[in-house]
């Protein structure tokens, strides 16, 4: 088996098939990045998976998962003003959490340099929106590099780090989902480790670092001057690519993954426009773009999500009175979704039909396949809890979800939630819904990682302002949705064992009077406790606690003594009530055409939580399977 950790630390130049998220780790090592921080969120957590492969003592930089993106940004900032090249990475909407700190970075003299890696998600593959974070870069005068593939991820991180260290400014490396996860053979340079300089270089004379009243203006002027200088540097940046097909009529300006989609559609259509592919997409290389506009009759701006580049290019053409027809976004659909080759072909067909690959018609014959919505894993504690909580609540009660695996309970057959916003929002929203409301009780949900991330302020507010809501805290000891990262109550951080900060102790410390706690899988007890909690006037919390079953079973499987188990159904006792398959709805249960129910051996993990749901006790205790390795 290849040792990918050793490869990342290789002294020699090498090539390897890696995803973008892995390529960036080698770039961090080569750039001599010293402090890296994050909060897990798709599409970026695999950056941490690659780091985790390297033993802590072998890592040439410090890494931590911080409690949230804002804290992670602050830790990276602190390291940078102390002279260390730092990096923070998180998902698209993570920047909203980090924004209060992030927007100040460009005002500061970051003597060590700092790269902010954003995992944007065009197509909303795993996010609650597809926000275009270039807006926040513009708001905060921060340059952005955007690569198209893993090889560019590596090169552009190095370029971002160099620029950041040269001008002491923050620089964004903007990745999108299918750039993070794309795999290709990437060529890496040699690397010579050097000792970490542990001299704290912080000096107020490098500042000011106190953005207050009149001090803000020189800091802002410095940021704007830097931005102007970067734009001029961008005109000469060798990473920008001009594909000159000697086509003086048709030119295209683009960047990132849509550039590759464009090449695919052109490979099929045989179209040969000139293409200007940018590496640094903010601030724009004005002269380079002006020259490109001047030398073409028509230019298409191929830009995923919002029209930031288009607006700036149109302004440039207007200011310099360049005679060129600019084709930008037309309808709403050009603002929506990922720019795949199919999407790009459709957009191009509207301007230059001969350039676009032809879409294939549907196959000659079609079969209707039932949809397969995402759901909770077999044996998941959330499913067990939903089943119990539902028995305690009225149809009319308002149930507010938060972010995490439990969010998936909004789908049939559970239909648990009516509202969802973002990390930690459930108690605040719930509090608002309890006001001027005497008839519909309000129940909020929260996971434990989210509790630490952004949930605590809402809880304090509920206490402080005496809101009448019940919070159900699903404590599974991990950040499950993003791949089981440890959090403050896990007893481990990324690097070592730590003292747990138990969720319950925090609540008690805050002065929450009404705390109930039960094993997530004890359905009857959970039902009773929720009934009791919602009857209380004021703020109450029910903690449903059990280790994430998926994580637990994976750990169990690694043990020599592990015995795989599964439940079975006594067909003579089963009266086809279908509670297990239709209401409890563990994916393990199979419905036959005659209405009989069976267990799918590929899926059952043998947790036995379903036993409590069968009205005729037809589900038999989990027993060892035979003949497995």
């Amino acid at each position: 088996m290849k040792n990918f950790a050793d490869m990342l630390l290789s002294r020699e130049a090498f090539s390897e098939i890696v995803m973008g998220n892995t390529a960036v780790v080698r770039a961090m090592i080569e750039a001599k990045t010293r402090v890296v921080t994050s909060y897990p969120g798709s599409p970026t957590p695999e950056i941490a998976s690659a780091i985790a492969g390297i033993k802590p003592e072998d890592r040439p930089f410090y890494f931590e998962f911080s409690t949230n993106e804002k804290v992670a940004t602050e830790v990276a900032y602190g390291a940078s003003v102390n002279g260390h090249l730092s990096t923070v990475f998180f998902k698209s909407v993570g920047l909203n959490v980090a924004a209060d700190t992030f927007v100040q970075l460009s005002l500061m003299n970051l003597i060590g340099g700092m790269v902010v890696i954003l995992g944007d998600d065009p197509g909303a593959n795993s996010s609650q929106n597809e926000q275009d974070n270039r807006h926040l870069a513009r708001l905060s005068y921060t340059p952005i590099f955007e690569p198209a593939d893993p090889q560019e991820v590596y090169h552009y991180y190095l370029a971002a780090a160099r620029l950041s260290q040269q001008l002491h400014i923050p620089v964004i490396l903007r990745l999108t989902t299918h750039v993070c996860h794309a795999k290709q053979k990437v060529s890496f340079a040699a690397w010579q480790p050097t000792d970490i300089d542990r001299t704290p270089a912080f000096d107020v004379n490098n500042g000011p670092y106190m953005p207050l009243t009149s001090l803000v203006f020189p800091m802002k002027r410095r940021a704007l001057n830097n931005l102007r200088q970067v734009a001029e540097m961008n005109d000469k940046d060798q990473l920008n690519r001009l594909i000159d097909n000697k086509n003086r009529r048709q030119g295209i300006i683009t960047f990132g993954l849509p550039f590759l989609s464009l090449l695919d559609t052109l490979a099929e259509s045989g179209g040969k426009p000139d293409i200007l592919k940018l590496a640094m997409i903010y601030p724009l290389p004005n002269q380079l773009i002006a020259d490109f506009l001047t030398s073409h009759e028509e230019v298409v701006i191929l830009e995923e999500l919002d029209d930031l580049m288009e607006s700036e290019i149109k302004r440039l053409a207007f200011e310099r009175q360049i005679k060129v027809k600019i084709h930008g976004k037309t309808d709403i659909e050009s603002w929506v979704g990922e720019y795949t080759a199919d999407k790009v072909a459709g957009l191009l067909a509207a301007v230059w039909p001969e350039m676009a690959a032809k879409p294939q018609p549907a196959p000659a014959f079609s079969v209707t396949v039932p949809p397969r919505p995402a759901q909770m894993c077999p044996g998941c504690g959330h499913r067990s809890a939903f089943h119990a909580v539902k028995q305690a609540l009225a149809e009319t009660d308002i149930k507010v979800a938060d972010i995490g695996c439990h969010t998936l309970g909004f789908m049939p057959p559970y239909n648990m939630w009516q509202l969802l916003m973002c990390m930690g929002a459930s108690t605040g929203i719930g509090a608002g819904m309890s006001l001027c409301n005497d008839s519909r009780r309000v129940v909020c949900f929260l996971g434990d990682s989210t509790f630490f991330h952004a949930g605590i302020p809402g809880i304090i507010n509920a206490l402080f302002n005496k809101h009448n809501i019940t919070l159900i805290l699903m404590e599974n000891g991990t950040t499950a949705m993003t791949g089981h990262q440890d959090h403050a109550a896990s007893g481990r951080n990324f690097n070592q064992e730590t003292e747990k900060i138990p969720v319950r102790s925090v609540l008690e410390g805050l002065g929450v009077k009404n705390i109930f706690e039960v094993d997530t899988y004890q359905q009857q007890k959970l039902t009773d406790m929720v009934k009791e909690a919602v009857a209380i006037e004021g703020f109450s919390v029910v903690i449903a606690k059990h280790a994430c079953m998926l994580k637990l079973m994976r750990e169990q499987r690694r043990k020599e003594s592990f015995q795989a188990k599964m439940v079975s159904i006594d067909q003579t006792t089963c009266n086809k009530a279908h509670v297990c398959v239709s209401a409890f709805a563990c994916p393990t249960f199979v419905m036959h055409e005659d209405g009989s129910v069976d267990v799918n051996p590929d899926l059952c993990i043998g947790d036995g939580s379903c036993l409590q749901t069968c009205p005729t006790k037809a589900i038999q205790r989990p027993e060892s399977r035979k003949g497995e390795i």
Partner: protein
Amino acid sequence: MKPFNIYLSGVGGQGIGLISEIILRAADRAGLKAIGVDTHGLAQRGGIVSSHIRIGEDVHSPLVSKRKADLVISLERHEAVRAASEYLADKGSLVYYNTSWQPLPVRLNKAQEISVQQVADFCQKCEYQLFEVHHADLPDPRMQNIALLAAICRNNLVAGLAASHYEQAMGDLMSGKMLDANLKLFNRLVSH
């Protein structure tokens, strides 16, 4: 060389990531340029998972376009039909492992399970070449992906990739007992 596009699908938990990376690395071992991408995150929770592989000199985006896959590989019967309908090009091939992880509407009795016969009819009418794979004697259901890989190798569904390339790729990604068990199964099924 004309690009060769492969689209893989299955249900979260079936081990699509492993089979996909084996094929990608096998192509590399065979001296071919190959790129790919997997779905990660939300979709893994019992939903549809997919993976894209593109082989050839003139391939750029890692994503396979709709109806432009030369080969669709699926680890599950429903997902086989769904993926082939959406991604398989004319004259393409579908290879799938014949197991059923019933989608929710089937379990709720609101939709019919896709049958083996329906898959066969669909492929016949669309003129797709079909390979159905099933082994009642697998040592572990988690090895269905390797059984499928053996069928891909035996039927030479990815041109230029020999058994040795797949074996080397497996060696890149697995070790110890897991590698031994998977290689043993792979070799047994390739040679039969």
